[in-house]
């Protein structure tokens, strides 16, 4: 019997503010900065210090909340989440509990099963913890604490248990990341821990029954790890249920090396965080006009782009997806289309998704770094469309443009790549080829039609790729008959 699965996610998103959530410390790249260099009395939790809310973080939270179709609380409350751990200098984390800044939203996702909405329960602001490094030197084990990360603003986005397959989990996570990157509220860089996941997973015999006992899988550092952890967990639960067993309500960890979940805490051992309102911070009041200003600054979002590219440019879905995955790519594409005149958006898309992406992969460049401006790309495409150069030459020219930043016209001139489309010249070359390969010509005449392409190839080679393939084909056919 296949059990019905319910999955809810909690995603911790590091907001890309300049400074930390409750102090003026700069947010630094944790993989680069020396330990404990971006800290101050506030984020070190020194006695007597007081937190001050980072306005930019609130603005980012509101922006994300609005894009997730959430209601924005005009009054929300910071609360203390109390627990002991060496990466938590105050012994409590300032978070939001009963009244989060954003609540009751949704996000649309697309899977092989079609479109659906995932409900967002809430999104709240909190501060990140520090980082521990566990060391083992000559049999002596100890841990080092780096508090650079302590106090970096996080937005925790919590869904309802609306996902039922791993495909949906993936689609949700990717769409959420895309959306937040469009809003420029996070780098979304999972390798640097800018997005971390927790999954609540439960199973029930069918979707008419009440939700099953859920387990919580914590500390998942990438979408990929999360998928693996959930897959493992579903198999584990399915097996227990099939054997007539019961799922224990517990908190699980995920071991990447062993590829399995393991119990961290049972229900009985669950932390009591003793949440209570942070007495050092007044309620967070956000004015309607500020919310409206933030709403007006929200750019065109991925879903709106999908709809528009389809309606205005009739691009196929797959190509649209490639173009919108990075906001800079889509702006580059739009800039190019704006200048492209007669050239169709689809042609532009082909050049970008094909050759430009190829180059970006090969060189490790991002679209911002490439040396070819949208205008230059248009001029290259025009040279090809107007049959000044053939496809192969065009690719060659583009490659050189990308390497050197020279304009297309100059490269074509320098290399003498201009396409030969004069009939006289081509006829001369074709005559020579036909004379050179009489046997092949005979076998063509004897009915071996595939030889045509081989002869065509010989002609193109003779023109060193500069022959206009359309015209070559026409003349070759004519001369062979």
């Amino acid at each position, binding site marked *: 019997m296949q059990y019905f699965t319910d999955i809810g996610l909690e995603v911790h998103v590091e907001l890309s503010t300049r400074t930390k959530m409750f102090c003026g410390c700069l947010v630094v790249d944790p993989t680069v900065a020396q330990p404990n260099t971006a800290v101050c009395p506030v984020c070190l939790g020194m*006695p007597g210090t007081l937190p001050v809310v980072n306005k930019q973080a609130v603005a980012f939270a509101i922006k994300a909340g609005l894009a997730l179709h959430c209601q924005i609380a005009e009054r929300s409350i910071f609360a203390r989440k109390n627990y002991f751990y060496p990466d938590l200098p105050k012994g409590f984390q300032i978070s939001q509990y009963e009244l989060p800044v954003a609540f009751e939203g949704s996000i649309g996702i697309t899977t092989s099963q079609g479109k659906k909405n995932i409900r967002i329960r809430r999104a709240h602001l909190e501060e990140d913890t520090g980082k521990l490094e566990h060391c083992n030197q000559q049999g002596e084990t100890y841990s080092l604490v780096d508090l650079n990360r302590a106090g970096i603003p996080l937005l925790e986005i919590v869904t309802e248990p609306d996902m039922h397959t791993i495909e949906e989990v993936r689609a949700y996570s990717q769409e959420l990341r895309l959306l937040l990157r469009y809003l420029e509220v996070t780098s979304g860089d999972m390798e640097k821990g800018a997005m971390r996941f927790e999954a609540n997973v439960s199973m029930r015999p069918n979707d008419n029954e009440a939700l099953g006992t859920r387990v919580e899988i914590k500390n998942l550092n990438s979408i990929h790890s999360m998928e693996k952890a959930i897959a493992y967990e579903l198999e584990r639960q399915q097996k227990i249920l099939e054997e007539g067993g019961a799922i224990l309500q517990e908190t699980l960890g995920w071991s990447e090396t062993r590829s399995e979940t393991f119990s961290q805490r049972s229900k009985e051992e669950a932390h009591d965080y003793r949440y209570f309102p942070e*007495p050092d*911070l007044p309620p967070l009041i956000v004015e309607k006009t500020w919310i409206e200003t933030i709403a007006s600054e929200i750019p065109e979002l991925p879903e709106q782009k999908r709809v528009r590219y389809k309606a205005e440019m009739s691009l196929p879905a797959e190509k649209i997806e490639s173009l919108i995955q990075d906001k800079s790519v889509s702006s580059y594409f739009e800039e190019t289309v704006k200048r492209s005149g007669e050239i169709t958006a689809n042609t532009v898309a082909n050049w970008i998704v094909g050759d430009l992406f190829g180059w970006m992969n090969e060189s490790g460049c991002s679209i911002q770094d490439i040396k070819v401006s949208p205008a230059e790309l248009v001029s290259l495409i025009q040279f090809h469309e107007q049959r000044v150069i053939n496809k192969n030459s065009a690719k060659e020219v583009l490659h050189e443009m990308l390497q050197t930043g020279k304009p297309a016209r100059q490269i074509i001139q320098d290399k003498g790549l201009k396409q030969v489309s004069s009939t006289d010249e081509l006829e001369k070359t074709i005559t020579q080829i036909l004379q050179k390969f009489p046997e092949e010509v005979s076998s063509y005449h004897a009915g071996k039609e595939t030889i045509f392409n081989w002869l065509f190839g010989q002609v193109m080679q003779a023109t060193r790729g500069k022959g206009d393939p359309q015209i070559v084909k026409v003349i070759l056919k004519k001369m062979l008959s």
Partner: protein
Amino acid sequence: MLQVIAGADKADSTATIKAVPDYLKDIEKGVAGMRIGLSPDYFRITFPDPESGEYIEQALPQEMQDAVYKAAQVYREMGAEIIEDVPMPNTRFGIPIYFVISRVEAASNLHRFDGVKYGYRTKQAVTDLKEMYRRSRGEGFGLQPKLRILMGMYVSAAQYSEQYYQRALKARTLMRRDFENAFDPNGKYKLNALLTPTTPTTAFGMADVYGDSVMMQYADQLTVPANHAGVPGISIPAGFSKDGLPIGIQLLGADFSEASLLRIARSYEMTTENEEWRKKKPAVLEGK
């Protein structure tokens, strides 16, 4: 001093950003036309009987009450209107609320003294993190903080929070409402200030020990309401008991009414300037 410390503080989000008035400007302009209230709830203390849990009421010593009535008379003569019987029924929750909320905050504030970064760390060898925490905090804290931590942890625990901490917050809201009603400019009482004793008794004698009497345990009952409600208050000397111990009176006002509280207090000071008790020095200075 208030003039200097009042106002916005960019390192303290709980400080108001309201403009700071000139507190001295009208300080000697008297109280004519002002409405000053008296509440029966400040002339008694109410506390739960340790045995039965029933609330017991106990009237304040007469000389404490007299000091307040005398001050009221002074104000009346200066042209203020004295409004009696202002109900402040939630005053009795002051101490219980304080015991709960302050303990919860104290326990949380003291979390940082965990031996990792701050405070004492046990010298004993430990096998794990939990033991390090337990020993460091166990050895490092004295009795009073331990009591506060234990009580704070207890009343904010998931299974008790509803009964204690959440109830304390609700009671605090009720207490706040008492003040809002008393000071509401469109309400029944329209007070400029509430006049009360500062403490249930005179200052304690030098040799008195904490816990000697119920009155002593509830010494803060009349001052904590202002802290819970977030309203300003001022305490000023108002004479001595027959035993020669000082008596204080308190003026409580609406949010941001510091200027008028200072003015009312200064009026009393000016009017009683030449009274005999003002010349008295503390007993310790007189070598008694």
